[in-house]
C-alpha cells in the first residue's frame, strides 16, 4: 500500500452494491449490522464526520499523528541547521553583544519552523492519502454524497451473498439501493 490509499479507488473494481442513506443514526446501525454479518464493507461515504462510525467500521487509528511528529522533527532540524549555518558558521553578527551560539533568540524561529512544517506536512499528507490531490480524478458514487446523503459501498464477488446484503441495507433505512458495474449505476 502506497502513500496514496489505493483501497479508496473505485476504478477496476468488481460489482459494488450501494445503499444510500439520509439519516446518520440509521447509517451507523446498518454499518454495524453489515459488519456483524461478516460483510466486508469497501467504504462508507459521508458529507461530514459521523460520530462512532469509525469505531463501528473497525477502522484502525490514523498514522497522521506520527506523520505530524516526523514533520515537526524535520522542521525543527531544518531550522536548526539553517540558523546554525547562517548565523554561526557563515556570517556571525554581533547584535547588541548577544551570544551567537544557542541563544534564546533561536527559540521563536525553531518554534515557528516546527509548527509550519507540522501544519503543512499534516495537510499535505492527509489530502495525499485521501486521494484529494492534483492529478487524481474525484470519484463520486452519488452526487449528493458531498451534501446530505451517505453511501455504503460493498464490493461483491462469488463469496458475497448479495441478497443478504441488500436485505440488511433495506431493513436499516436505506432510501435507495443501487449496483455499480464499472462506473455504470443501475437502481435495484
Amino acid at each position, binding site marked *: 500500500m502506497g502513500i496514496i490509499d489505493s483501497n479508496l479507488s473505485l476504478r477496476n473494481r468488481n460489482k459494488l452494491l450501494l445503499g444510500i442513506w439520509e439519516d*446518520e*443514526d440509521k447509517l*451507523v*446501525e446498518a454499518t454495524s449490522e453489515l459488519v456483524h454479518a461478516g460483510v466486508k464493507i469497501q467504504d462508507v461515504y459521508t458529507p461530514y*464526520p*459521523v*460520530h*462512532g*462510525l*469509525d*469505531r463501528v467500521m473497525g*477502522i*484502525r*487509528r*490514523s498514522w497522521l*499523528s506520527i506523520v505530524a*511528529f516526523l514533520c515537526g522533527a524535520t522542521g525543527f532540524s531544518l531550522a536548526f541547521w539553517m540558523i546554525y549555518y547562517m548565523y554561526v558558521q557563515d556570517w556571525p553578527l554581533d547584535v*547588541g553583544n*548577544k551570544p551567537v551560539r544557542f541563544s*534564546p*533568540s533561536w*527559540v*521563536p524561529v525553531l518554534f515557528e519552523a516546527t509548527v509550519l512544517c507540522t501544519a503543512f506536512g499534516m495537510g499535505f499528507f492527509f489530502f495525499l492519502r485521501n486521494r484529494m490531490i492534483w492529478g487524481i480524478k474525484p470519484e463520486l458514487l452519488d452526487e449528493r454524497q458531498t451534501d446530505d446523503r451517505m453511501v455504503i459501498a460493498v464490493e461483491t464477488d462469488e463469496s458475497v451473498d448479495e441478497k443478504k446484503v441488500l436485505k440488511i441495507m433495506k431493513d436499516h433505512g436505506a432510501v435507495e439501493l443501487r449496483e455499480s458495474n464499472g462506473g455504470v449505476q443501475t437502481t435495484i
Partner: protein
Amino acid sequence: MGHGHHKIEITQEQFTVPAKAKRFAIGLTVIGLILAGIGIATMDNGSSHGHSHEATTVVKHDHAATENHGEAAEAGKHVAETEHHGNVENPNFGPRAEFYTQTKPWATRIWSNILIVGYLLFMVSLAALFFVAVQYIANAGWSAAIKRVPEAISTFFPVGFAIAFIAILVAKNDLYHWVHYEHLHLTKGQPGFDAILDGKSWFLNSKMFLIFPVVLVAIWWLLGRKLRSLSVAEDSAQPGDVSFFKKSIRFSAGFSVIYGFTIAVVAWLWMMSIDAHWFSTIFGVYNFATAWVTALTIICLFVLYLKSQGYLKIVTDEHIHDLGKFMFAFSIFWTYIWLSQYLLIWYAHIPEEMSYYQIRFEEYKFNFLLNVVLNFLCPFLILMTRNSKRNPVVLTIVGCILIFGHYHDVWLMVVPGVFGPGQQIGLLEIGTLLTFGGVFIFWVLNALTKRGLIAVNHPYIEESAHHDVGV
C-alpha cells in the same frame, strides 16, 4: 449524536468521603507540619544552609555600609531622577543589598512560604471557577459531566486568599521592600529618596495593597456563589428547562471579563511588587497561565480519583483524554508566556527590566532551568502520545510533576526578590506545601459531598455522556 441508537442512563450520584481519603489528607498535613517543624528547627539563624548563611552575613555587612555612607543611595537617586538612564551597577535598578535584610530572616522565610502556597492555591481555585465560566461561554458540551469538580475546587479560593493575606498582614514589611520604604515618608531631595518607588506610590501603597484584593475577592466570591447556586437549582428543575443555563451564561460572561482584568492586578500587587523597581507588562498573563494549567491538572486528578472510587459513571476515557490534552496544551501555553517575558527582556537588555532575571539567572540558575524541565519538557514529552493522555497512572505522575513545578515557579517569583541569593527549597518549603495541600484536598473532598456529583439537568449532560473524540 451518532450514538443515538444506544441510550446512556444518567443518574445522580452522592459522594461520601472515604475514610482512607480523609486519612490521606490529614496525613499530608501532619507530615507537612512535621517536615516544616524539622525545617525550622534545623534552620541556622534564618537558613538551614551554610551557603545562604554566608550570603546573609555578606548582605548585612553591605547594609551597614550603605547606612553609614549612603553613597549607593545617593548615586541611585541621582540617576533615577535623570530619566532612568542607568547601567547595571546602578543600585536603584538592580536588587539592592539592603532590600534583603530582614529583622528576623527565619520568620520571614516561614511567612514567605505561607504566602507562596496560599497564593498558588488561591489562584488555582479561582482558575477552577474560570474553567466553569469558560465552559458556559463556549457552549461546551463535553465538560457537563465533570462540572461539579471545578465547582467544588472553586469553593477554596477565599481560604487560599486568607492564607496568603494573613502572611501579608503579618510580614509585609519584610516581604515587600517598598512597604519598608513607604514608612520612611521621604520627599524629593531627601537622601535615600527613590524616584521609581515614589512614582508608583499612587498605586503601590499599603491602602491599595490591602483593600483592593479584598474588594476583588468579594466580587469573585459573589459571582462564584451565584454560578454554583444556579447549577444546584438546575438539578431540581423541570427537565428541559434551560433558564438556569441561560442565566449561567450571562453570569459566566460577567465573571470572565472581571476576572480577566482583575487577576492581573492581584498578580501585580502581591507578586510583581516583591521586586518593586521592576515591572513586566505580561506578568498578569504569566501568573494566570501558571494558575490555569495547575487548575486543569488538579481538576484532572480529582476526576481520576472519583472515577477510581466508582463515581462519575458517565465520565469515560474520552473526557480524561480531553483533560490530558488540556494539561499538555496549557503547559505549552505557560512556556510560551514564560519565554515571551524572558525573551523580550533578554533582548532589550535594559537594566531596570533585567534586574528580575539577573538574580534568577545568576544566583538561581539551577531553579531557573528546572522550571522549564518540570513545566515544559516533562509534560511535553510524556503527554505527547494519545495513549499517555488516556492513562490514569501517567496522568497522575505528570500531574504531580506539574503541581510541584508550578509551586516551584511561584517560589522562584518570590524568594530571590525577598531574600536575595542563597535560598533553596528545603524541608520547610516541602512541609508548607504538604500542610496546605492536605487542607486543600480535605476541603475540596468535603465540598464535593455538598451536592450531587452529576449535573443531571444540564442541557448538555446527554451530549457529555456520549462524548467521543474518535479513534
